[in-house]
């Protein structure tokens, strides 16, 4: 497997299952995605489509009893090389408890989690928990780590950082905690930052501040970002490329402009139609996608979206897995609607 020169990470055909007593949940059913160096990939989908599991698979922190059955996660990394040169590692294949994986975690790939309220331990100061990341991965003294922590807290916009660094999580608001989380994620200057719905649990004004902060930091740190959200508005603002996920698969991928202006997959089209429009008539009802996500234990034959699809082709969509159609510029959709003309 060879990554393209501009690619930082590529996930191909990733399958993750959760064998439970009630049956097996196919959380990821062949995910393909790739993130370019210094670019932001937005990952969009409904709850339960596998966005977070994809992210956690990269760090190999899938909750029990989930396991990777198939697929590859190739990351370009300098970990484990003596001369600092880059090489490629398949994260799906290395032991999650190995020293290699431990060094990649946060040293190369850091993550901002969805719930800032529970991401920190209540019994340790924020400064302790943030500088711990630095002390774990970089050769710095405790003094330096503390100094760097205070600087990072200032950069993410936490006032009085030098006193705040000694405070406990409960003394911070949700927005402030998420800022601290971002500070912690960036303190080792990772090559990939995963942001798993970082703004979902915050109110709208704080969300806007947070996006602005991330855009500024992105320019300063140059990390690639995998930005997971179910909010298309956020994607339009921050992402370079977009992957749309449905039931453990990426159904459409492309540059942000292509996805918004020329969506191909019916699911993407429905998602975009479901965005409430400020200019719309008051009496207009909000558009919703028909039906519900099937039970996680069910295996939908054919195209996973066909039971909800308004343009379903009888006799084809429910029996055969759809092909991946490329529309140019790296824009592709997995759908039966488009004959292989292009």
């Amino acid at each position, binding site marked *: 497997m060879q990554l393209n020169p501009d690619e930082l990470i590529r996930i191909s055909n990733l399958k993750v299952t959760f064998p439970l007593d009630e049956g097996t949940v196919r959380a990821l059913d062949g995910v393909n995605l790739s993130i370019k160096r210094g670019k932001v990939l937005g990952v969009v989908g409904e709850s339960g489509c596998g966005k977070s599991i994809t992210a956690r698979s990269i*760090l190999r*922190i899938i*909750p029990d009893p989930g396991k990777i059955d198939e697929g590859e996660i190739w990351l370009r990394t300098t970990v484990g090389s003596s001369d600092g040169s880059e090489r490629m590692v398949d994260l799906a294949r290395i032991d999650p*408890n190995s020293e290699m994986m*431990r*060094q*990649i*975690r*946060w*040293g190369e790939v*850091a*993550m901002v*989690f969805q*719930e800032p309220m*529970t*991401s*920190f*331990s*209540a*019994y*340790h100061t924020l400064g302790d*928990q943030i500088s*711990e*990341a630095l002390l*774990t*991965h970089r050769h710095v003294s405790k003094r330096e780590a503390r100094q760097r922590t205070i600087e990072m807290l200032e950069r993410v916009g936490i006032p009085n950082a030098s006193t705040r660094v000694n405070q*406990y999580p*409960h*003394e911070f608001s949700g927005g402030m905690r998420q800022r601290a989380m971002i500070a*912690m994620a960036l303190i080792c200057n990772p090559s990939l930052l995963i942001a798993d719905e970082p703004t979902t649990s915050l109110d709208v004004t704080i969300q806007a501040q947070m996006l602005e902060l991330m855009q500024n930091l992105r320019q300063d740190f140059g990390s690639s970002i995998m930005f997971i959200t179910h909010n298309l508005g956020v994607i339009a603002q921050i992402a370079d490329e977009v992957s749309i996920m449905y039931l453990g698969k990426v159904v459409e991928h492309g540059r942000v402009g292509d996805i918004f202006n020329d969506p191909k997959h019916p699911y993407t089209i429905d998602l975009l139609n479901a965005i409430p429009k400020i200019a719309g008539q008051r009496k207009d009802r909000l558009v919703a996608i028909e039906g519900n996500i099937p039970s996680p234990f069910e295996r939908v034959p054919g195209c996973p979206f066909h039971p909800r699809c308004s343009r379903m082709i009888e006799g084809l969509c429910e029996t055969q897995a759809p092909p991946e159609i490329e529309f140019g510029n790296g824009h592709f959709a997995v759908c039966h609607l488009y004959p292989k003309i292009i």
Partner: protein
Amino acid sequence: MARFIFQRTLTMLLMLFLLSLVVFLVLELPPGDFAERYVHDLRQSGAQVTAEQVQLYRHMLGLDRPWYLRYLNWMSGILTRFDFGWSLTYRMPVTQVIGDRLVFTVLLSVVTIALSYIIAIPLGIFSAMRQYSIGDYTFTVLGYLGMATPAFLFALILLYISVIYFNTSAGGIFSVEFQNQPWSWAKLVDFLKHMWMPVVVLGTSGAASTIRTMRATMLDEKNQLYVTVARAKGVPERKLIWKYPVRAALNPVVSTIGWELATIVSGSPITATVLSLPDIGPMFLKALLNQDIYLSGTILLIYSALTIIGTFLSDILLAVLDPRIRLTGGTQ
């Protein structure tokens, strides 16, 4: 923090005062007193005792004065001279009667509690980290057995085994030949040979329940998001387990350590009797039966004062351990 401790100290002192009053009143409540009891025993053995003699005896002991005067007298003795009054049955100061036994009981209990925590906490952590493993099931079964077996029965079984299979006498705290000897190396060895059994018997149920508590809280904590975050941060597994979930799981255990203070002195009368330990428990029972009010009062006072002090210590410990408690207690 200082303010929090100050508030708690004041509350504790008030509670201690109320407690001493309640203890005294409760012991006053049963009809009759020591004089009556004593005369009853004399008459049983055939002696002739007149009503005047009873009254005189009662006067001698000071039992005819109103209760509040006796209470004040008792309390002022305790506070000014550390004098807990006069044991009517033993005809000695109470401090002398219970002194040795108290020292022994405290020693035994402190060793027992310390050992049971030292053993139980790591086992609880192990059980949780290897949930549903053979080790976990083993400790779970042992834990339930330990909790469900009454201590005195366990003591009897151990006594039986040690006498029948190992041919040693295990009751008491010294072998007969060392009974009245001064302390020596051989006596210490003999003492340790006898001590293990009460420590095991008294420690088992506490250790068993600590294992259960520790396991349950660890199971809750180890799947919390902050643990996953620490793992994602690349903190080595062993270090992160001890730093994060163990720290959080210790709270419920630590918060009950204070309550153990009371059990430290109370021991358990039945077990102590079975193992013929010079514990304080059997003496308490006897003092109650004889209406030896200052002796029983002192023991009861110590029990309940230790409960209150233990709760106080637990509060302080929790505040030290949990920053959230510190805040709400300190700034309001």
